[in-house]
């Protein structure tokens, strides 16, 4: 469902991804692991279509279509969801209003009827309850005054509401204590299913203790240098990135 071929991405005229190849089968959970500076966030932003992340070569095929040609909102409506590493605080924009617009934009695109205020609220409350989150969140401005853990949980909540086909989680585990990590992991696991594809981008393997991936890819120097099963995480944990990178280069 996602096929990345020889992807080159520049940021500020500097190439960060140097020919990345990655293929993810529908319904699977893949993890992309890599050291700092390997291009993990660049990959995430390139998938979501952020301005300034220029694709200079290669292609990204999403459900057989060229993802790069789509605007960020179009990708979202087609089912791509990026959980941000650093969710943005937006004073003055209330969560409920924003999320209702987003949910309805996605629903319109999929030919579904829009939710009215009551239907939206009902759905949001139901999801919040499952995530053990306070519904007061709905009337607060987006992420303003949220703790790191709350922001990440808000990302998971939005993901649930938007019902994506491809969820890309960019270091969603970073900065979380073990309890918050478990909640986020449960939130991700609950979404696993045959029509949902999940790409976990992470530095550490600890999230993978809770969300067990089907495949793991090692990203270093702007390329996938090694792919394997879930046991690869343990190898990385035991040896560290440096050894794995060296071995792959050899």
């Amino acid at each position, binding site marked *: 469902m996602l096929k990345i071929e020889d992807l080159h991405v520049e940021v500020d005229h500097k190439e960060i991804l140097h020919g990345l190849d990655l293929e993810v089968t529908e319904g699977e959970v893949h993890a992309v692991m890599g050291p700092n500076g390997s291009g993990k966030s660049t990959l995430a932003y390139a998938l979501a279509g952020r301005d300034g992340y220029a694709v200079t070569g290669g292609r990204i095929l999403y459900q057989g279509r060229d993802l790069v040609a789509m605007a960020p909102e179009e990708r979202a409506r087609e089912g791509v969801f990026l959980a941000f590493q650093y969710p943005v605080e*937006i004073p003055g924009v209330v969560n409920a209003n*924003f999320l209702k*617009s*987003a949910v309805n934009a*996605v629903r319109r695109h999929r030919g579904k009827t829009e939710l009215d205020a009551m239907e939206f609220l009902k759905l949001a409350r139901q999801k919040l309850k499952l995530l053990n989150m306070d519904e007061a969140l709905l009337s607060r401005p987006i992420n303003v005054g949220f703790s790191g853990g709350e922001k990440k949980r808000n990302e998971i909540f939005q993901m649930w509401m938007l019902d994506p086909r491809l969820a890309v989680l960019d270091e969603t585990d970073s900065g979380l204590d073990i309890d918050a990590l478990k909640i986020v992991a449960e939130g991700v696991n609950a979404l696993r299913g045959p029509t949902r594809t999940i790409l976990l981008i992470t530095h550490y393997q600890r999230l993978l203790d809770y969300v067990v991936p089907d495949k793991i890819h090692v990203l270093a120097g702007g390329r996938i240098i090694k792919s394997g099963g879930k046991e690869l995480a343990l190898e990385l944990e035991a040896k560290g990135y440096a050894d794995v990178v060296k071995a792959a280069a050899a």
Partner: protein
Amino acid sequence: MNVETAAGVTDFRPFARPERLGKSPAWLDGVRETAIERFREHGFPSSKIESWKFTNLSPLARTTFRDASAIKGPELTRADLEPYRLTPDCHLIVFVNGQFRPDLSALDHVPDGTRIVDFTAAEEEDLRALTAPPAVPVDPRARSLFDLNTACMSGGAVVHLGRGAILDPVQLLFVVRPDAEPTAFHLRNLIRAEAGSSATVLESYVGLGDGIYWTNVVTQIAVAPNAVLRHYKLQAEGNSAFHVAGTSVRLDHQAAYRMFAASLGSELSRNEVDVDLAATDTVARLAGTTLARGAQHLDTTIRIEHSKPRGTSSQESKAVVDGRAHAVFQGRIRVAPDAQKTDAQQISRSLLLSSTAAADTKPELEILADDVKCSHGATIGDLDEEALFYLRARGVGEAEARKMLIDAFIGELIEHITVDTARAYFRRAFDRWLAYGAQP
């Protein structure tokens, strides 16, 4: 009247006929003559004058305007005015093309002790107050349009609240339906709040059509001891209009004045507000927002004069500027030597939506007392790209995401409007502006 060049008036005939000036006492003729003499001497304010350096009036000075009395009032019904009403049942005084329209006004239920009348019914004491000098003295060359207004004023509203009177919201609605030839409307309003009174007054300036006209309005306000005035102003003039306004406020002991002004109409506007905290323990809170697009030039100039001790003032300005538009905010705070324990704050924020939009902001503080708290701040920035991407990455379209962020920027100011109906009124005006912006 025929105003041909910025150098001054080449041919001035006082067109305001005496019978239109209330009881038109002889002294008033003298005041008018003196005023026009001063205007002849100074002409239109030039951008060489410090307080006019950001706003060039030559497009206005180049235009030849007819007198308001030269055009017929258009046929308008109450239904035509409905979209511009504060509420369907508030007290309402309507002027169409500068002329009082009792048929469109709603003044039947004004309580005892309060008068809301048009200018021609003004009492002698009203006329004295109407023609008082501005509350804050400035270089007379910077104020020549006030003089022109004094000489030519031919209409306006008088709102007089008696001692202890409490008045439900009253709306002063000035509607212009321009026609082919440029026309000038010199309006003068008076709001007098006697001791212990409390009122909410909304001034609305609405243009119905694209013709060239000029609203030159002066509003004189006096707030007596322990009185409270909540003053709102919507400037939604027509696209080709000029709007020049001078609001002059005097606060007596323990008087409180709150103002919210929104400027979103006209091609060129200058909204001046002068407040003299002329007695002890007064409060003046001014907030305003400017929404400019196309080639609009919208200027807000505020002068706060702390004359006496223990005055509190605040100014909060937010501008959203798109297209090739230009927003100007100038805020002066002057604290007299006697005005100890003054607390004066000023903040100005501008949001530029295009690379050709411009904002100028100029704070000016002159503090002659030593025991005061004064602060000012200014920011000019773009829409937050990160926030924009975040919203879009969740499926919200770009235009709608921009709208959300603009709305967030100005929404906070609207939330601070204390009168519910006024808050809803400005909300509607901003929503109309935002909706227009989303169109291709």
